[in-house]
C-alpha cells in the first residue's frame, strides 16, 4: 500500500515598507500595512478560499478517506484575522472535519533554529498554543521553516513535549541509494521522519502549467499511474509514504485557476482511491502504518526544500544575508531584555525567513523565483529596508 501524504504550507510574511534612515525612531512601525493587506486579500480570493472550499467538498464526499495536512504560520493566522477573517473561519471548518492534521513549526517562520535555540523553542511553543487556540489541535508532527533540517533539530524537537514525527526534504545527497518512500527515524532514533518526494511534488507545484515540459499537460490518469509505478520498488508488504509537500499557494496563486490545477485536485482522490492501492494519510499516520523497523538517517549538514541546491543558500549565501542575520540575532536578546512587548513583537516579525530570501542575489533560474516573491526592486533595497528596520528597534530600546 502506498500512502499519499499531502502537506500544504500556508504562510504570509509581514513585508517591510520602504524604510529610510530618516524613519528610524519615529512613531510608526516598519511594516507595509497596505501591501500586506492587498496580498492577503488577493491570495485569499485566488487560493485560500476556493481551495479550502474544494478540500471541504472532497472530504465530505469521501467520508474520511481523503485527508490532508497543513502547516499554518502564526504570521499568516494574524494576517487572516486582520485582513481576511473568512479565511480563518474556512480553516476552522476544515479542522472540524477531523480529516485535517495541523503541523507544528516556528510561529514566525523564522531561521531561529540556526542561531538561537531558546528563541526557536519559544517560537515553536507560541505556534503550538496558536494552533490549539484556533483549531483545537495539538500538533504531533513538526516541520521547520522551509523544511530546513539537520541532526540537531530532531534533538531540539525531541525535548519538546508532544512531537513524534518530523518532516524534511528528500535530498539526494543524503539519501544516496535510499528511497524517500520509506519511513525513517532521525539519527538518535527518537522521532519518525518523512521525506518529501520532490519530483512528484514539484510536478504539481512548479511544472504543472509549464508548456515546455515534456509531460505537459499533467493529467490525473498520468499522475496516478506514476504513483502506482512507485509501488514496484517494494517487493514485500512494507507500507510506502509518498510525501507530496508544497506551498498551499500553488493552488490558484502560483498555478492560476486557468491552468486547470483545481480540476486536477478535484479528480485526483477519486482516481487514486479507485486503484485500491493508494490511501490518503496524515504525516502522523506514520506512527501506526509503519509495519517495519525504520532505518535511522543522519543529516550532518543542513538541508531545505529551497532552490536547486536544497540547502541554506536561499537565505544565507551573500554578505548582505550574513550581515543581516548576524546583526539581527545579536540584537534580539537585547530587545527581549528590554521587556518592551511592541519591540519584541516587531523584532519577531522581522525574524521571518522571507526577509533574508529577498536579499538573495542568486540570479539565473532560482533568482527568478526569488524575484517573483520579492516586494522590493532589488536585493539591496530589501537589505537596506531590513537593516534600517532593525536599527529602528535598537534605537527604541
Amino acid at each position, binding site marked *: 500500500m502506498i500512502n499519499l501524504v499531502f502537506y500544504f504550507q500556508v504562510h504570509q510574511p509581514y513585508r517591510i515598507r*520602504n524604510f*529610510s*534612515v*530618516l524613519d*528610524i*525612531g519615529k512613531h510608526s512601525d516598519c511594516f507595509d500595512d497596505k501591501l500586506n493587506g492587498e496580498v492577503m486579500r488577493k491570495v485569499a480570493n485566488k487560493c485560500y478560499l476556493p481551495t479550502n472550499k474544494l478540500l471541504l467538498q472532497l472530504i465530505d464526499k469521501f467520508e474520511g478517506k481523503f485527508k490532508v495536512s497543513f502547516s499554518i504560520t502564526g504570521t499568516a493566522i494574524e494576517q487572516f484575522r486582520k485582513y481576511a477573517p473568512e479565511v480563518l473561519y474556512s480553516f476552522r471548518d476544515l479542522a472540524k472535519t477531523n480529516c485535517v492534521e495541523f503541523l507544528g513549526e516556528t510561529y514566525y517562520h523564522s531561521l531561529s533554529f540556526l542561531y538561537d535555540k531558546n528563541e526557536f523553542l519559544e517560537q515553536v511553543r507560541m505556534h503550538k498554543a496558536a494552533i490549539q487556540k484556533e483549531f483545537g489541535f495539538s500538533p504531533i508532527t513538526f516541520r521547520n521553516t522551509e523544511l530546513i533540517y539537520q541532526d540537531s533539530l530532531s534533538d531540539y524537537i525531541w525535548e519538546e513535549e508532544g512531537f513524534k514525527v518530523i518532516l524534511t526534504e528528500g535530498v539526494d545527497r543524503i539519501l544516496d541509494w535510499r528511497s524517500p518512500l520509506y519511513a525513517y527515524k532521525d539519527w538518535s532514533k527518537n522521532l519518525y521522519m518523512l521525506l518529501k518526494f520532490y519530483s512528484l511534488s514539484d510536478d504539481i507545484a512548479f511544472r504543472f502549467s509549464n508548456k515546455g515540459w515534456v509531460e505537459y499537460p499533467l493529467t490525473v490518469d498520468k499522475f496516478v499511474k506514476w504513483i502506482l509505478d512507485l509501488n514496484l520498488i517494494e517487493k514485500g508488504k512494507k507500507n510506502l509514504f509518498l510525501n507530496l509537500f508544497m506551498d498551499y499557494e500553488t493552488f490558484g496563486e502560483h498555478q492560476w485557476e486557468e491552468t486547470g490545477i483545481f480540476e486536477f485536485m478535484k479528480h485526483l482522490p477519486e482516481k487514486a482511491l479507485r486503484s485500491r492501492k493508494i490511501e490518503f494519510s496524515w504525516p502522523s499516520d506514520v506512527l501506526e502504518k509503519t509495519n517495519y523497523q525504520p532505518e535511522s538517517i543522519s543529516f550532518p549538514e543542513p538541508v531545505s526544500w529551497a532552490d536547486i541546491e536544497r540547502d541554506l543558500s536561499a537565505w544565507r549565501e*551573500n*554578505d*548582505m544575508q*550574513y*550581515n*543581516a542575520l*548576524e*546583526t539581527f540575532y*545579536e*540584537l534580539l536578546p537585547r530587545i527581549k531584555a528590554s521587556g518592551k512587548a511592541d519591540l519584541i513583537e516587531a523584532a519577531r516579525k522581522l525574524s521571518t525567513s522571507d526577509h533574508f530570501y529577498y536579499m538573495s542575489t542568486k540570479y*539565473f533560474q532560482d533568482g*527568478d523565483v526569488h*524575484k517573483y516573491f520579492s516586494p522590493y526592486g*532589488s536585493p*539591496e*533595497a530589501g*537589505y*537596506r529596508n531590513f*537593516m*534600517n528596520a*532593525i*536599527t529602528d528597534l*535598537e*534605537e527604541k530600546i
Partner: protein
Amino acid sequence: MRILMFTWEFPPLISGGLGTACYGIVKGLLKKGIEVDLVLPTREEVYFPLRKVSDVDDLPVKFISPAKEIEYTSTVFKDSTERYSYIGISSVPESYISVTEVQTFYEYFKNFTEKFEYKSRIPFNEVLNNIMGSENIFEKVKEFTFRAQRYARILEYDLIHAHDWLTYPAGIIAKTVSGKKLICHIHATEFDRAGGAGDERIHKIEYSGMTEADSVIAVSKYTAEMVISRYSIDTGKINVVHNAHNINIQESEDKKRIFKDPVVLFLGRITLQKGPDYFLEAARIILSRYPKVRFVMAGAGDMETKIVHKSAKYRLKNRFLFTGFLNAAHVAEMFLSSDIYVLSSVSEPFGIAPLEAMSYGLATIISKQSGVAEVINNAIKIDFWDVKLLAEQIIRLIEDPAYRKDLGEKGRHEVEQIKWDRACDEIIKVYKKTAGR
C-alpha cells in the same frame, strides 16, 4: 543688462547640483537688476523671461511660437506640476550621466537579457530602453542646439551665458547668429565626472565651447587649473568665481537626533567621483575600534550596490546604513540629524554640499581635491586617498565633543559669509568686462 542663459537643470524642474548652482546665480543676478532669459531642455519650445527676484521661483513661461503662446495663456493649470508637465521637462538630472557609464551598462544589460529565457525579460528590456533614453542625451543636445538659433534670433539680450558642456553647442550657435559675446561657465569637466579620461565626444565639446567663449568662468582654482592643463585654454579669459549655498537656517532650528550615537554622514551621489569607497574604508577602521558610531551613506548612484555589498562583507552590522535617494526636504532632515560630514571626493570642481553641511553646524571634513577647500578654513582638509588620516580625524572629532562643537560653530559662521550675492558681483564683473571687450 539682459542675459540669454542656457542651462540643463533648474529647480524645481530638475534639481541636481548644476540646478542648485544655477538657481543661486540667477536669483543673485535678478537681485542686482540683471534680467535673464532662461532656456532649458523643455519638450516645448519655450523660455523663461525672468525679470524680478520672485520670478526665480514662479518661473513665468513664454512660447517662441505666437500661436502656442496664445494657447498656453488661455490654458488653466491646477498647479505648477501640471504647468511644468505642459511644457515638458524631465525630472532626472541628466548632466551627471557620463557616457562611458551608460555604454558599459547598456552592454551589461544586453548581455544579461540574452541569457534570460522567459518572464524576467520584460523588466530587463524596460531597463534597457531607459538606458537607451539616457544614451540619447546626444540627441537631446542636438535638438537643444538646433533650437538655439531661433532663441538667439528672436530674443533681445546683451550677452550669452552657457552652463556646462550640454549647452556649449547652443551657446556657440547663439553667438554665431547674434554676434553677441559668449560666456561659458564650467561647473564640472568630463575628467571629474568620469574619474578618468571619459568620453572623447564630450572632451571635444568642452574644448570647443571654451575656445569659442569670450570668457570662461570656472567654479574654483582647482577647476581653472584643470581646464588650463587639459584643454590649454587661454588663461587670460578664465575667471574663477566660487559657488555659494542657498541654506538659510534659523539659530533656533534644533538638532533632530535619530541616533543616540554620533552620526558621520556621506551625502551625495554614490559614484566614483565622490569617493564613497574611501568613506567606507575609513568607517571600517573606525568601527573596529569604536563600535558606537553610526555611518550613514545618503544618496543614490551607480556604485551603491557595490558599496552595500562591501559594507556587508566587512560585517559593519547596522553601523553603516543607507538611505536611498533623498529629496530636498529629506536632505535637510539628514543634515539636522548628523554630527560629522565627510566629502571624500576624488575630484570635486566645487562641492556645495559641504557648505550646506557647515551651515547646519556639522563638523566637516573635506577632500583637498575639491574647489570648496579653497574657500573654507574651518574644516578639516585631507587627501581623499588618505583613509587612515580620515579615520583618525573622525575619531578625534568623536572623542572630543567640545572640539567637534567648536569646529561646527566656527564653520557655521564662516559659511554664513559665503553668499550668492558676492559670487554674483564677481559674475557681473565678468559680464561687464566681456561686454566691453
